[in-house]
């Protein structure tokens, strides 16, 4: 644009991404060549502004369980729903629902009807939520069979069991039924973000830490005797340093494990060499760990967060242009 060609060109930064680990449950990557405010904005967006689907309204027809209606409705909301196609849904605040507050463009309908007809405790789990059509939700039983799978929105089931053996152990329990207790309800899910309610948070954990910058002063290091070197090595609880007997030297073996406890710095000071080591947090390299809950894959969470950040900045850009235009016309 004409104004920026005359103004000083600021150094444009070119961040880099390197993926360290990528699993179904988490992703670990390094973001470098940018500053903490950008890293933090990404982290905040991943937690609070990435949209996913979650059950919002539950109409309970029969509840003879030990839990209150609203207790069960709360638990239903917290069940993670597979949200890979969340972009195909409209936001319910702008949706043109023909009648009422919901339609198939913005909502996904479920029903649940479980009764304990046996003698043992019966677990009602997320697996018992059945997808239904809007017609069935509204009570029109002529259209019970429906082929649409709700754009793939369904409860997250039995993904990460760890030591758990069977589906029954891994499924998310909604309520446990005693003898003759029954739970019958219908509900619908919609799109939302973490800022509105914690049930819309796609991550279990989204953190970043600063990459450690550790520098050993070799001159001072040579002045230590073997015993002191071993003491220095052992002072670190994360085993960052390693003393090699062959070379009689201490090296940085696991730099990334550093927890900034500064025990090595304190030890160096106690041994009389306060300049021996410096431990700093990089202001340019950040190591992200993002762990999901099953509603979105870790890559989708990061991609969605970046898109969301862009659209926020887009919105601000449009607004600034509008303000500039209106000021021109004033004067």
């Amino acid at each position, binding site marked *: 644009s004409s104004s920026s060609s005359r*103004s000083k060109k600021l150094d444009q930064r070119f*961040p880099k991404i390197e993926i360290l680990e*990528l699993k179904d449950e988490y992703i670990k990557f390094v973001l470098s060549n940018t500053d903490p*405010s*950008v890293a933090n904005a990404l982290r905040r967006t991943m937690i609070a502004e990435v949209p996913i689907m979650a059950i919002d309204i539950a109409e309970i027809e029969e509840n003879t369980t030990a839990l209150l209606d609203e207790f069960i409705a709360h638990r239903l909301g917290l069940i993670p729903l597979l949200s890979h196609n969340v972009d195909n849904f409209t936001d319910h605040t702008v949706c043109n629902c023909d009648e009422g507050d919901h339609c198939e463009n913005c909502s996904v309908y479920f029903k649940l009807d479980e009764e304990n007809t046996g003698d043992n405790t019966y677990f009602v789990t997320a697996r018992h939520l059945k997808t239904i059509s809007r017609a069935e939700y509204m009570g029109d039983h002529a259209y019970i069979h429906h082929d649409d799978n709700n754009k793939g929105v369904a409860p997250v089931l039995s993904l990460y069991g760890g030591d758990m053996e069977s589906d029954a152990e891994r499924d998310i329990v909604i309520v446990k039924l005693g003898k003759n207790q029954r739970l019958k309800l219908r509900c619908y899910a919609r799109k939302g973000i973490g800022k509105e309610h914690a049930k819309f948070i796609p991550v279990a954990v989204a953190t970043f830490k600063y990459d450690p910058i550790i520098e050993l002063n070799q001159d001072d290091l040579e002045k230590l005797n073997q015993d002191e070197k071993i003491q220095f090595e052992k002072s670190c609880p994360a085993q960052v340093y390693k003393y090699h007997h062959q070379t009689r030297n201490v090296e940085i073996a696991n730099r990334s494990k550093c927890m900034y406890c500064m025990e090595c710095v304190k030890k160096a000071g106690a041994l009389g060499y306060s300049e021996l080591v410096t431990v700093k947090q990089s202001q340019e390299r950040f190591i992200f760990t993002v762990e999901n809950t099953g509603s979105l894959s870790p890559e989708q969470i990061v991609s969605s967060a970046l898109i969301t950040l862009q659209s926020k900045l887009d919105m*601000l*850009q449009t607004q600034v242009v509008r303000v*500039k235009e209106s000021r021109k016309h004033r004067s």
Partner: protein
Amino acid sequence: MSNAPPPGDHIILSPEEIKLTYEDDQKIASAGTFKIIKEDHTVGNMMRMSLLRDSRVLFAGYRMPHPLENIMLIKIKTREPVQPIDVFEHHIKLLKAEIGTIQDQFKDALENKHKSQSLD
């Protein structure tokens, strides 16, 4: 319970609300305050840190005057003849480009990771 704001009130703009307004400072030359509604530190801190790295910016700060009201103020003072509103626009562009670079980098890194994982 009756004075609770409607849900989504702190996220969604109502029809009469304006996202961003700008006012020149009455007493100080080439300084002004942006008032942004329903945004938080995610955007505010990012903009502020970017502005501080610009040598044309003499002052840049942001605050939320009250936690119960979703209003964020960003105050900028620039070295004349540069105007705050132009510098603000420039930094939005810079940040958009930076996020765009991160997006491309992430896509490439994912492709490489998928390739190397499928070879295992």
